[in-house]
């Protein structure tokens, strides 16, 4: 009925009404689970969104007089199902489905409130998890997955997603439409995959959550000091996943990584709004609550035998910095050892370069130089400024000033932005 599932109350100018605001808040809490149940029922995301929106309209009409029901989730689900049946009746389609649904509804109406609650409840969160797995299905590209997940699971409006990704509404709307079509075309089920399929599809879910997080994390260096909501949404998704799949070590590893990285958000921008690198951050501004949560999640991941998962290892690296109260207390030997393990499970030239830097900090510049020489020919690093910059740093610390200067200059020529170039030219001049 509503073409665009944006905030109805806002449109109708009712947002200021406290009753409507309260109803909308309840709806927001229930929305993801409602969507999940309706998507499974209709196997059609657009239809599920319409039905959820219709249910909100009914609530906005009825709750101000009847009060918020004891189990608003079950109430909204029942209202949406009733709408689904009306719709099917109206169009005279899918008669068999109608009969099945009508029977189900009749049975429910004869039930006690407790029985209805039990029937509609999703105590294991399987439906919600099923929706997340569908929205993160590998038939959709990573960016489409991210937008669809934020829309369906996070409940963000298209406008909010566009703002967060520094994109425009039309582009995001098109991305979401493409993603929905891809799901429909592939006949994706809104079910939680089991066994081997779960193991195969979990990485694409985790990848999306981390992509959302990194969009927010990288954007904090922008001109505005307003913190983008993406990190928070990704952390929320991570906590939901960890709540629903507490036995999956990589879910906990990713959650740990995000919590620890997010603990530094406030310290990443200096008073002038400029980016502050990790070793120069004011550690008193790190959020100790998030660090504790992150360390706790990491501990659980490791206890489940997941210490060598790519996310758990990255979280362990982040934890080394989080545990050091001053930059000079950093346990670089442990960091070097963790990179030795990370390169086994997540081989990449960038990991190799970071490993070289860690070894130089732990065992001296010559150790770093030896490692960096081994990877200098990697195609991915050929025009990568951080490589000559790291080598310049090792050479300078080894007392080889002239060679260091040449490396910093080479790095400056490859630098991606002015700030980075200025920094590297300054280092070259200091040699």
């Amino acid at each position: 009925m509503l073409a665009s599932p944006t905030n109805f109350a806002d449109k109708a100018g009712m947002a200021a009404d406290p009753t409507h605001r309260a109803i909308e808040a309840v709806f927001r809490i229930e929305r993801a689970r409602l969507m999940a149940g309706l998507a499974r029922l209709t196997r059609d995301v657009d239809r599920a969104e319409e039905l959820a929106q219709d249910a909100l309209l009914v609530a906005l009409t009825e709750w101000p007089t009847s009060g918020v029901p004891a189990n608003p989730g079950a109430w909204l689900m029942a209202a949406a199902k009733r709408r689904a049946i009306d719709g099917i009746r109206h169009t005279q389609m899918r008669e068999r489905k109608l009969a099945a649904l009508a029977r189900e509804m009749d049975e429910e109406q004869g039930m006690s409130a407790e029985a209805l609650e039990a029937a509609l409840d999703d105590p294991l969160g399987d439906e919600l998890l099923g929706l997340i797995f569908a929205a993160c299905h590998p038939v959709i590209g990573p960016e489409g997955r991210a937008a669809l997940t934020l829309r369906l699971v996070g409940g963000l409006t298209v406008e909010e997603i566009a703002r967060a990704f520094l994109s425009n509404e039309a582009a995001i709307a098109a991305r979401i439409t493409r993603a929905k079509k891809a799901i429909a075309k592939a006949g994706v089920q809104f079910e939680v995959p089991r066994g081997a399929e779960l193991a195969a599809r979990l990485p694409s879910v985790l990848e999306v959550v981390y992509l959302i997080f990194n969009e927010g994390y990288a954007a904090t260096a922008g001109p505005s000091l307003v913190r983008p909501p993406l990190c928070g949404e990704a952390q929320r998704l991570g906590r939901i996943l960890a709540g629903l799949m507490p036995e999956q070590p990589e879910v906990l590893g990713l959650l740990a990584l995000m919590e620890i990285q997010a603990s530094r958000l406030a310290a990443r921008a200096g008073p002038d709004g400029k980016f502050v690198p990790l070793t120069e951050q004011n550690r008193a501004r790190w959020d100790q609550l998030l660090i504790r949560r992150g360390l706790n999640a990491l501990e659980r991941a490791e206890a489940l035998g997941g210490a060598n998962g790519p996310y758990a290892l990255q979280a362990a690296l982040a934890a080394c910095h989080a545990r050091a109260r001053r930059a000079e207390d950093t346990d670089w030997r442990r960091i070097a050892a963790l990179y030795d393990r990370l390169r086994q499970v997540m081989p990449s030239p960038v990991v190799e370069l970071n490993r070289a830097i860690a070894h130089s900090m732990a065992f001296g510049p010559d150790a770093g130089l030896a490692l960096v020489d081994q990877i200098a020919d990697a195609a991915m690093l050929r025009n990568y400024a951080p490589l000559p910059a790291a080598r310049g740093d090792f050479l300078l610390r080894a007392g080889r000033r002239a060679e260091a200067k040449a490396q910093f200059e080479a790095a400056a020529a490859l630098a991606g932005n002015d700030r980075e170039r200025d920094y590297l030219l300054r280092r070259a001049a200091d040699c």
Partner: protein
Amino acid sequence: MRVMVFVKATEDSEKGLGPVEEMKEMFDAMGKFNEELVNAGVMVAGDGLKPSSHGKRIHFDGPSRTVIDGPFAEARELVAGYWIWEVKDMDEAVAWAKRCPNPMMGPSDLEIRPFYEMEDFGEVLTPETTERYERITDKMASE
């Protein structure tokens, strides 16, 4: 936004834990609610506090520091527990708080208070004062 939700104390909670059966029931209900908070990604932290008879107050007046042992009067002014929640806005915090099972045997209160965020200080925190604050906290970190 982040909010702290205070569970206000009552005369009962100030006496310590209640009868085993009643406490069990409440722990079950509260456990279920907490799990919902975790699964929704709302829960950041939360704990219960012992009665104020286990507590101490430090009274400040100029240079003087006086330690006062609990218990403290006015149970309604005391805190028996807290949560920290990550929510979109106060409306959502209220909607969640309404779902909380009765935290006490008798009538009781929850109080929701949003955390200050850097943006709130706006004009108050000029770059210079922020910098000074950083220098001070830097010192604190290295001590």
